[in-house]
């Protein structure tokens, strides 16, 4: 998602570059892109996302500039003698946390975890949802009823309880967090894909393809899949912020990223004891989380509008 975005942003002319002549009919995606470009909110949200990616990538550079590492404890300058965090200052732009660590650099490094977990788990979820949803919707019959019931089962799981139980058995780690989040997100994608596949497979051109002797696999990949790209892109942009919040929730509960690695969720968790005396400790990671999810959500909304200008609120509900 981000890579695609980056490429597009680097070459603003991409829209026309790939087309043989200016007059030729434009594809669905190209049309959507031109609509997206005219959407101010999308531009703003997209800029914020790009900025976040840049910050996450440049985290070690930023650490060099400030001279503070994310897990470095400044016990003399970053803590009062009673062990309370110190507020924002020239040395600590966002103040310090309960161990005298620089909140600014931890928020910066936290972006890495959030984006990594958010994007990777979403990719996994979308891939799984596509494959399973497509198989269920297109093949139908026993395959459909088995897979569809399985999706219902996953959707009805008490996800947080399950995650807590699983993590306490296996032990918290980033890969596990990614898998858990993906596991609870794919079924929603799968259901949507299944529904679309069900309706697409009744269309005449599918029947035509079958009459021409195309096999199931060819029809699924060549005829059905391309028609699913738009809704899946919409869903992907909307899943990322959900995954980011989910990661923060897991970390908040001590089930996600292991300390001392900073994540916005475990920073918020640490800050709870101190919110009365150290507002910066809770505010900055909270703001970072809010800004990120907001940007992704707004961008996702815009992408959806761009792809389906007539149906404004189709995929938004979950």
């Amino acid at each position, binding site marked *: 998602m981000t890579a695609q975005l980056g490429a597009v942003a680097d070459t603003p002319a991409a829209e026309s570059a790939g087309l043989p002549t200016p007059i030729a009919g434009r594809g669905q995606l190209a049309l959507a892109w031109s609509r997206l470009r005219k959407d101010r909110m999308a531009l703003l949200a997209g800029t914020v996302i790009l900025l976040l990616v840049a910050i996450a990538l440049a985290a070690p550079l930023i650490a060099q500039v400030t001279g503070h590492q994310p*897990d*470095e*404890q400044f*016990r003399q300058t970053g*803590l*009062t*003698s*009673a*062990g*309370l965090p110190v507020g924002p200052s020239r040395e600590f732009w966002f103040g310090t946390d*309960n*161990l005298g660590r620089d909140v600014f650099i931890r928020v910066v490094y936290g972006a890495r975890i959030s984006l990594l977990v958010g994007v990777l788990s979403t990719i996994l979820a979308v891939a799984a949802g596509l494959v399973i949803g497509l198989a269920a919707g297109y093949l139908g019959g026993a395959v459909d009823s088995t897979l569809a019931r399985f999706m219902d089962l996953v959707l009805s799981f008490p996800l947080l309880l399950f995650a807590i139980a699983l993590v*306490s058995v296996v*032990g*918290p780690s980033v890969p596990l967090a990614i898998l858990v989040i993906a596991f609870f997100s794919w079924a929603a994608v799968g259901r949507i894909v299944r529904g679309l596949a069900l309706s697409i497979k009744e269309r005449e051109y599918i029947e035509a393809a079958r009459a021409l002797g195309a096999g199931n696999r060819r029809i699924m990949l060549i005829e059905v899949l391309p028609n699913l790209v738009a809704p899946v892109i919409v869903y992907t942009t909307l899943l990322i912020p959900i995954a980011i919040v989910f990661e923060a929730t897991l970390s908040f509960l*001590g089930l996600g990223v*292991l*300390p*001392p690695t900073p994540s916005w969720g475990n920073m918020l968790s*640490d800050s*709870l*004891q*101190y919110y*009365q*005396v*150290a507002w910066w400790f809770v505010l900055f990671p909270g703001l970072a989380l809010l800004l990120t999810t907001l940007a992704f959500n707004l961008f996702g909304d815009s992408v959806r509008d761009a792809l389906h200008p007539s149906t404004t609120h189709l995929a938004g509900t979950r």
Partner: protein
Amino acid sequence: MYGRRGRAVGASVATVLALVLAGCGNSSNGSSTGAASTPKQGGTLKLLGASDVDHLDTVSAYYTTSYTLERAFTRQLFSYPATADVSKAINPVADVATVIPTTANGGISADGKTYTIHLRSGVRWNTQPARAVTAGDFVRGLQRLCNPVSPVGAPGYYTNTIVGMQQFCDGFAKVPGNAKAMADYIDSHQISGVTAPNDTTIVFKLMKPASDFLNILALPFASAAPVEYLRYVPDDATFRQHTLSDGPYEITKYSANKEIDLDRNSAWEQTADPIRHQYVDQIQIVQGQTDPGTVQQQIQAGTADMEWDTVVPTANIPALRASNDSRLGIFPALSTNPFLIFNFQSPNNSGALKKLQVRQALEYAIDKVAIGQIYGGPDLNTPLDQVIPPGNVGYQPFNLYPTPDHRGDPAKCKQMLAQAGYPNGLKLNYVYRNAGNHPAVTQSVQADLKKCGVTVKLIPQTPADFYGKYLTNPSGARQGLWDIAAPGWVPDWYGNNGRAIVEPLFDGRTYGPNSVDYGDYNSSEVNSLIDRALSEATADKAAPLWHQADMQIMKDAAFIPFQTQKTAIYHSSRVQNTIFFPFSQNYDLTQVWLQ
């Protein structure tokens, strides 16, 4: 052997539930004795906190919070006075017994092995009609200790001292866990060393002299138990609805994990109780508030009166101190919490932790001031460099591994590690409790060790698994599941308590499942010093031996002490006569009145 489930857990309960922020400045701050006004009767005292008692039956109840409650509805032969003077507060006085037995008054035989104790009159159960508490009730209380269903968490105190206790317990362990079978066993078997020649006399025969025997009898485990208790399986749900009381308050409502209510016990008489009082009418303990910050706010607002199992959040203490809030009380905890232990069994790093020089190197690594900051800073925490904390027998300050200002000396650590054959450092598995202040302590230690070239792999666990799957599990220790860990320890009693600190934590002969010598430290010198100290007739004679054991353990670098803490607790402005009871780490409910 006060085990991990024991009062230590009292500390860890609070910890679990949020934060043991223990600690605190000096007892003069806080002014919480507040004894100025004259006693006032009436009112309902409201306590607010997170969770239920561990057990309600005196046989197995072991948390500090349980002790808070037991103080109000149970009585022992001996107990501790309510006083702000710590040196007096830690010495047992007569409770149901008429006097403290001595060789001079004939209570203790010349060989120190027979204790004859007389019961005072006027002590009654709240039965219908009220019935006198007898010597037989105390015998029954001890018999119930090793029932097979909910036994005492620290059997060693009794089986290692009283003649015949071990045999009685061995037999009891084979009895089926139903009320009838257990009652039959108790009716048909005796502990040979505990007899009641008449209703007001009880005689104990000891295996060898024990200068701390009165402390052992003052534990709530040794409370009297009425004959009615034999109808129930110890501490089961039915039992919890049918507790009887010989103290100033009786339990009128027990609702698990929600609420415990106590009312005045009309069978109790002030003249028959030299320690407790009955000022407030009711005591209401409300549970389910797991956030210490919320508890604190409610007490400050006056909608609750005292903490139940939480303490003042560390972050709140500086402001309360700055405003000289007289409702804040800061009291010495006389404990060592937390501290770092080594797994002597670990095969990791080709058995590096077995090497004395490696452990000694690590002694220099820790910034103890930083650990103190996590628990509220130097006003509440004092760095500790030895096994025995102040306020306990054998305490003589010394420091074998000094570092500048207790801030740690990474260079020295690194150099000694290199000399020990580890110039590239070590990789250690650090299991820790994922609750309260423990993650912060863990990260602080991790950062210290990193400066000395030691890489630490963190293994977060729930408090239950931390002990159950790791620290008290020898097979896990042998596999190297963990190398270092930071438990805490609150001794079962203070003063003459080598049996409650050095013996359980460092007697290598006790190593095995559920041992609290978690890392399998085993030194023949220390073991023999323990034996000699325990058989001394008085605490004064035992003290130098405990000190020698302390010195030897530190020479062996068997563990890394961090600090001794003070406890910060808070009460509403209408609560008067708040006297800190160090054993329950809270105010004594039988002393307070409401203005």
